[in-house]
């Protein structure tokens, strides 16, 4: 009965895949993670962003049960990682830090090892995953002969072997070349979009997160600073923040009514798509406002990040 209920909630599609509730980790009298609370919605690529030493890896370790929480709760699809560990972690595939595999075994033997630990993974699935990550040619070689990029691929392979609802990757682009990063990015987006996998990636690379994620949580010194949508513009039908340089911002704002996000010195900022921007321009001109320039001002995540973390000092 309880199982059915949980499944119903899952297929509802809006229940968060991961919920962190007041998660705190203290070691000695140092607070590593301070009262972290946020939800990860299903089917998104969710970024976990913070400078080095801000507690990203510690949080991930608590999410997969490698570390205990001092207080708080983490639920994976409604299952507590503390009290229902096996049921909770069954739905998770992860790489924590580097994908460390058994070097004296072949790639295939490594995958076989992890496949044996979860019932119902046929050999065919191993072959399928190997194909997917593009390791077919080298899978029967020992892992000690693999390059870092190949180990990363093998790491992804073991993480998705059991088709987890949640894929957790800790700094997945470490050690990958630009082509590898791009491939991983496309692959993660594919997983989220077509297989409904929720992907949770941590990184300190801002530009990377911007390209990869739907949403990011930003932490610093163990505290959650902000959770924000990245592709908000794209999701709203290609809208972006557009700055109109005008001679009289007040008059311009009046002409446009509530559409104005904010007025700045020498201009107004509105949220608009390409065509709308042209329309707004026409309305401003019709209202007798002089328009000197029109440009989009969407801030990069980097700007936002530096803004909220105050320059990204090591916390």
């Amino acid at each position, binding site marked *: 009965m309880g199982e059915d209920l949980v499944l119903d909630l899952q297929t509802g599609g809006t229940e968060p895949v991961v919920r962190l509730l007041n998660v705190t980790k203290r070691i000695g009298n140092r607070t590593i993670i301070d009262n972290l609370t946020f939800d990860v919605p299903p089917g998104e690529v969710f970024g976990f962003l913070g400078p080095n030493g801000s507690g990203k890896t510690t949080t991930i370790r608590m999410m997969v049960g490698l570390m205990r929480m001092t207080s708080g709760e983490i639920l994976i699809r409604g299952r507590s990682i503390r009290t229902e560990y096996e049921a909770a972690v069954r739905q*998770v595939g992860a790489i924590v*830090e580097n994908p*460390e595999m*058994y*070097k004296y075994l072949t790639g295939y033997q490594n995958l076989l*090892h992890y496949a*044996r*630990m979860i019932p119902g993974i046929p050999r065919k699935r191993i072959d399928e995953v190997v194909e997917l990550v593009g390791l077919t040619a080298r899978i029967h070689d020992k892992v000690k002969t693999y390059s870092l990029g190949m180990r990363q691929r093998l790491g992804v392979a073991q993480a998705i072997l059991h088709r987890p609802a949640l894929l957790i990757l800790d700094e997945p682009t470490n050690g990958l070349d630009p082509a590898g990063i791009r491939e991983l990015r496309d692959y993660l987006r594919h997983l989220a979009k077509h297989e409904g996998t929720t992907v949770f990636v941590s990184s300190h690379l801002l530009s990377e997160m911007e390209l990869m994620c739907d949403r990011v949580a930003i932490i610093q010194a163990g505290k959650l600073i902000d959770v924000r949508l990245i592709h908000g513009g794209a999701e709203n039908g290609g809208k972006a923040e557009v700055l109109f340089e005008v001679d009289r911002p007040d008059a311009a704002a009046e002409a446009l009514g509530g559409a104005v996000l904010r007025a700045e010195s020498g201009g107004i900022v509105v949220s608009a798509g390409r065509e709308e921007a042209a329309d707004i321009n026409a309305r401003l001109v019709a209202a007798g406002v002089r328009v000197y320039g029109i440009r989009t001002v969407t801030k990069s995540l980097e700007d936002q990040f530096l803004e909220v973390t105050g320059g990204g000092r090591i916390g």
Partner: protein
Amino acid sequence: MVDFIRLVRNENMKIYRRLRTWIMFAIMLIIPLGISLGAMALEADPDMWFFSYLEAEVVLSLITIFAVIIAADSVAGEFSTGTIKLLLIRPWSRSKILLSKYVSLLLFMLFFTVSLLLFTLLVNGVLFGSNGEYTYPNQGSRSYIVYLLSYYGLNLIQIIVTVTMAFMISTVFRSSALAIGLSIFLLLGGNMMAALLSLLDKPWVDYVLFMNYGLSTYVSGGTPIPDRPFGFSLAVLAGYYVIFIALSWYVFRRRDVAA
């Protein structure tokens, strides 16, 4: 249950897919073979039972060292290479994962000792056969094979205690070097320490772990501690065993993995 066997198969794979295991296996067989070949050249009328016993005496301590190395690496090795993280994030409790490691370790010891027994009997049987005159000390009415099996069995108990200690150190301190070092020190220095400690006329001395080593003397009518019955030593070893196991599981279940 079937699923748990799969965990043990994983641990077995990690033991037997490594070259070092087979090097150990080869060394374990080459030493008795060398002794037997040497005996063939030197002795007038060698006996298979005498040499099977002698070779067991030599090589069983080597098996202890090999098993200690495997035990020490079993848990500490996963921590030092970082593979412990990917191992633990599976739908298995830590207790069962540790148990699968321990079971594979026991299987390793069993595999090696049984191989040694069969190999020495085979080699000495083929090379020498029994000369019909030699008897084991205090053999009485027991057959050769029962005597030899008792000797192996008593040694195996002692090997299991030593290896469990190495496993415990490996789990608690996550250091294979410490586990190997301490266990071998106990193995080699134990006799000397025992001799020194027995000079002390204190009652607690008899409860020290290595004072009760040497169970195998029981096969020829002795006991590890002269004025204590065999059961006493067995009970003391059992007590240490329970502590080693309890400590290993307690620590492994609770530890934060930050490797």
